[in-house]
């Protein structure tokens, strides 16, 4: 019966994934809080202007830029890094699922999840991230 073959992709794996995601979200939150502290200490009393859309500086739009800003202890860089980590948690979920499907030798779904992963990859790389 098919149901028994799906052990890897059901309860047990999903529970592991759940813990993985929680860890990812927590790390992201820690980074964002740390970045927020730096940002607010330095710029807390400056006006917040988000009325006009100006687009983010390129430093905050790409991997390299974000890491660079974060490593140089720029509050906005650290926060952006945290946001990036958060963005990666669903991606990790998809990758994990692909491996779980491979464990079950369900090649159709390995292909399906790989496709979804590639779409996600493209979305981040598509415009230069």
């Amino acid at each position, binding site marked *: 019966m098919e149901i028994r073959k799906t052990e890897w*992709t059901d309860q047990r794996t999903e529970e592991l994934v759940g813990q993985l995601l929680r860890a990812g979200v927590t790390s*992201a*939150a820690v980074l964002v809080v740390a970045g927020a502290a730096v940002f607010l200490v330095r710029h807390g009393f400056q006006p917040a202007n988000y009325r006009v859309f100006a687009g983010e500086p390129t430093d905050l739009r790409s991997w390299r830029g974000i890491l660079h800003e974060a490593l140089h202890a720029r509050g906005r860089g650290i926060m952006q890094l945290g946001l990036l980590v958060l963005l990666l948690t669903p991606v990790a979920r998809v990758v994990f699922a692909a491996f779980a499907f491979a464990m079950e030798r369900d090649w159709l779904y390995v292909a399906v999840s790989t496709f979804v992963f590639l779409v996600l990859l493209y*979305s981040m790389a598509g*415009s230069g*991230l």
Partner: protein
Amino acid sequence: MNNLEFTALVGAGSFGAGFLGALTGLGGGVVLVPLLTLLFHVDIRYAVGASLISVIATSSGAAAAYVREGFSNIRIGMFLEIATTLGALFGAFLAVIVTTKAIGLIFGGTLLYSAYLSTRPHKDVYTDEPQDPLATKLRMNGEYPSLTGMREYHVHRVPLGFGLMFGAGALSGLLGIGSGAVKVLAMDQAMKIPFKVSTTTSNFMIGVTAAASAGVYLSRGYIDPGMSMPVMLGVLAGSLLGARLLAKTETKKLRFVFATVIAVLGIEMLYQAATGKI
């Protein structure tokens, strides 16, 4: 207002949205963009970017809780994700060329429709449905725990579900919402999947869909850390608390209140967009 004030106020508002969203199961994200644009006069593109972040936060944050119950069906979710992520890319690219006024109008309409949808009843159990050959070939059928033991269910009308999911993804990419309601609707009504399976699978899906759009938004510079930070932290805190209190509250009344709020916000957004303030 300065950054400190902005952070505190937006954080509080986001906390409320996350809290209500978790309590009612209706997704607080849909309230965030109107809140940010109408109340704080944030440009809608920044608002959508921040909202996408909050969708990922609640999806990944709540994952552990949903999973323990054993309802989600990863195969259904993953297969339909092909449609939603492609839709999300489409929606995100649309967001670049569509005017903010149009986004505001579409958002207002979606809010009104969401309010209407949440008042519709859903069928909890589909019994005696014959097997759909395509769904069976794709191994989508499954079983879920119920009071009478493990219960089998069958999935139907995969192409229709697929198409609806593409639409849900596009909405997500354009408006920054999780489109959880549309997804649950598609799975529940179109594909005849049991409600609890639909909702938990949808939770998995909204995070992945939002990530697809968020990637585009991030690389285009629509995600501002100073602005997204209070949203992310507020929503996380709010939804964690809301999930804790879930068992102790009467959700029916809350849902009605929430649906009313969404309807009012929908009208407000339509008005503001139409009069050129968005």
